[in-house]
Every structure is written in structure tokens, then in C-alpha cells.
């Protein structure tokens, strides 16, 4: 049984494949899984704001027949009294069967794992990792393409601080024939250590970097748009200067392949215009939906539940 998911690389390719197949089964016949987690309790500990990730986990647990205890506002909890993360986790893990945690500090999920007596899922630790977003992204590819390998990926936006991008790029390195197109302003380029991590796993990986998205759009099988995140900047002026650098509109989408996919971890701010939503290549809302089904598969796996039914 998997006891933790902190880093997307905590799961092997085989475990990803197993989760994709389970997620697909649940997606196709959710009625067969409505009692699977009966009597189990999941805790969502969110130390910073989240809408979709928390609700996606909570909906996933409810759809498995389980129950949810939620700490969505730290200002009205023991955290406001100065309780340490270790003490909170030690206490909460007495009450529940599995913990989902989001925290603003890098490495916080690893601390939660250390002090928890039940499985822990990292729902985002600062600018560090967001493994269930990666799981969602890969599952979306699996559902649309049947495979993850043999694709040219364009990553656009904040490639410096964007944890979803870092997690996805490093995980994709384990799949063959993946090409990376990195589209960002110079100040928000992908850090060298992420490239090094990729090259360690896949020495043949190539990175094509540009600040002009039009140059590479025709080459892409998948365009992964991201928002420039205000909360990751120490300096508000830098955020305001960079936030509208890339905007994907209908004209740009027309430059893309007919069967390309446009993904986004959401929430969107201004980087994709609303007119793009109607294009069949824009799959970001379906991606968010698939995220719930793959989280159902993950929760089942980490609780040791039998999904072969």
C-alpha cells in the first residue's frame, strides 16, 4: 500500500498506469464505487486558499461513499493558536484514515508524512510539488490519447515558480519521445535544476526555449498554459509587469495542429480568452473533471481498497 504521495516521482510508471486504468474504470462506471470507502474518513488540511483541489478531493471521497473532515480556514483552528504542524498532524491522524494537506511552505508535506500515522497526500506544498495535479494532467493525456509518450509539450507562462509545471516536466522525463517547448519571459524561465533533473532521467531530452509563443505553436501536440501567480512574487511590481505576457486567443489557437490539446491546471485569470473555451482542443474543464476521478482512484489505492469489482 502506498503511504505517501509527496513528490510525483514517489509513484512508479507502473503505479501511474495502474491508477490510470482504475481511474478510467471509475470514470466509466462510477455507480460501482459508491460504497467503496464506506466508513473511511479523509481529512483535508488546507493552510492556504484552494477551491478546486480541495473540492475535488472532497467530492472524490464523497463519491466513494467515504466521509470528509475539513480544515479549510486556519484562522479559526488550533493553527491560529500557534500549534506546530507536527502536533496538528499527530492529532488529526488519530481521527481519520487519510490526510490531504496543502501548505504554503516548501517541504511541509514531507513533515506531515513524518508525523502522521495514516497515509498523506500532498495537495501542494508552497512552490515545491503538486503531485495530484501531475496525476490529473497525465490521466487527461491517457484518456484523450491513450498514452503519455510520443508528444511534443509546450509549457507557457510562469515556468520559474509554477510547481505544476515543474512536477509535470520532471515526471514526463520518464516517458519516451517527449519534447519540451518552454515559452516564458526571461525572468520566469525554467530553473536549470529542473532541466538537470530531466536530463538525469532522459539524457536525450531537448529543451526549446522561446519568449514568442507563435514561433512554436504549430509544433505542439499539447499546450500547457499556466497563470502567472501573484502569490509567488515577493515584489508586486514584477507581478504586474509580467502577468499579461502571454494570452492565448482564437488567432493563436488557429495556428495549432487540428488535434492538439490545450490544457491548464486552473484557475485561469487572463492567459486564455473565453472565446477559446468553445474550441474542441480546449480541454481544461474536462481536465478538472478527470482530476476528481483520478483522485478517487488514488484515495482507493492509498486506503488499500479493492477496486476490482
Amino acid at each position: 500500500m502506498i503511504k505517501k504521495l509527496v513528490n510525483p516521482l514517489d509513484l512508479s510508471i507502473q503505479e501511474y498506469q495502474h491508477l490510470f486504468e482504475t481511474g478510467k474504470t471509475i470514470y466509466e462506471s462510477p455507480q460501482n464505487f459508491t460504497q467503496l470507502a464506506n466508513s473511511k474518513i479523509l481529512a483535508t488540511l488546507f493552510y492556504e486558499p484552494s477551491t478546486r483541489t480541495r473540492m475535488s478531493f472532497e467530492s472524490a471521497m464523497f463519491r466513494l461513499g467515504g466521509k470528509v473532515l475539513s480544515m479549510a480556514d486556519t484562522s479559526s483552528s488550533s493553527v491560529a493558536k500557534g500549534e506546530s504542524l507536527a502536533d496538528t498532524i499527530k492529532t488529526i491522524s488519530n481521527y481519520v484514515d487519510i490526510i490531504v494537506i496543502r501548505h504554503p511552505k516548501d517541504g511541509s508535506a514531507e513533515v506531515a508524512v513524518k508525523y502522521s500515522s495514516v497515509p498523506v497526500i500532498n495537495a501542494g506544498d508552497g512552490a515545491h510539488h503538486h503531485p495530484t495535479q501531475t496525476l490529473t494532467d497525465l490521466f487527461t493525456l491517457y484518456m484523450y490519447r491513450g498514452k503519455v509518450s510520443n508528444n511534443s509539450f509546450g509549457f507557457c507562462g510562469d515556468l520559474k515558480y509554477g510547481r505544476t509545471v515543474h512536477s509535470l516536466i520532471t515526471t514526463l522525463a520518464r516517458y519516451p519521445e517527449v519534447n519540451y517547448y518552454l515559452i516564458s519571459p526571461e525572468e520566469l524561465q525554467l530553473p536549470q535544476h529542473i532541466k538537470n533533473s530531466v536530463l538525469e532521467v532522459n539524457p536525450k531530452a531537448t529543451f526549446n526555449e522561446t519568449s514568442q509563443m507563435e514561433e512554436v505553436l504549430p509544433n505542439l501536440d499539447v499546450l500547457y498554459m499556466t497563470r502567472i501567480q501573484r502569490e509567488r512574487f515577493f515584489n508586486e511590481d514584477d507581478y504586474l509587469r509580467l502577468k499579461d505576457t502571454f494570452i492565448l486567443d482564437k488567432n493563436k489557437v488557429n495556428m495549432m495542429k487540428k488535434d492538439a490539446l490545450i490544457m491548464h491546471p486552473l484557475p485561469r485569470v487572463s492567459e486564455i480568452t473565453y472565446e477559446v473555451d468553445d474550441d474542441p482542443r480546449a480541454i481544461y474543464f474536462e481536465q478538472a473533471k478527470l482530476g476528481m476521478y483520478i483522485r478517487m482512484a488514488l484515495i482507493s489505492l492509498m486506503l488499500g481498497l479493492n477496486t476490482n469489482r
Partner: protein
Amino acid sequence: MSDSELKVEKITRGIVIDHIKVGNGLKIFNKLNLGELGKAIALLINVPSSKMGRKDIIKISDVLDLDLAMLVLIDPDITLDYIDEGKVIKKIKLELPNTVRGLLKCRNARCITSAESYLESIFYLVDSSSRTYCCHYCDEFLKV
């Protein structure tokens, strides 16, 4: 007084921490809390060296079981001579440890160790040639 006039007796039993970069001798003395050890200790500063030009040396008598592995984090070039009955019984060139607990501090302001003070820092060696470690919690690199 010239350098040649300053003589310190050889020790017959103990440890000589040699080839210390000038300026690090006092740092190591304080880090190891040698003043509290209750043994005869010589701290030689800025002595002539054929290899280094100048160097610091620390001689600790009557002790052979001090854990000095982490000194390499302060000074990569130091050597340890273990002496018994007037002879060098072991000569060690220290190597960077694979794991360092509690001694290094993560420089990432967003790292959880900056917020939860009870956490012991843990660093893993990722590249010995560039003396680079990686934080267990946040993966931030740190050169020592």
C-alpha cells in the same frame, strides 16, 4: 619573534588537525568546543607551510575518539593525524558526508524548516565536486 622560534612539542597520543586554512583554526576550535574538553590543546595560527604558504593547526592530546567527520563542511582541505605512542597510526583526508543532520541551514525562505523550528535540518550530498547539498524538505541546493 620569527616563525622559526615558535615551537610546539609533538604530542605522543592524540589528534592533530592539520592543513587548516588560515582563519579557520579558531572557528574549528570554537565549533568543537575544545576549550571545554579538559585536555591539553594547542591552537597554532598562521604557521608556515610548504604546501599552503600559511596554515592553522590544532593539536589535541590524550583523545582519539572525537567525531570530526563534519569538519570537512568548514574546511575541505584539512587532514587528521591520529597519534599513539609517538607515532602516526592513522592519517585521514576527510570526505564530504552523504547526509548532514542539524548542522546546515536551508537558505530557501519558503522552506518549512524556516517556519517550524523543532525540525532538524537534513541535507543530502548531490555533487561532491561542487560541494553541493540538497535540502531533504524543499530540494533547495546549498553549496558548502
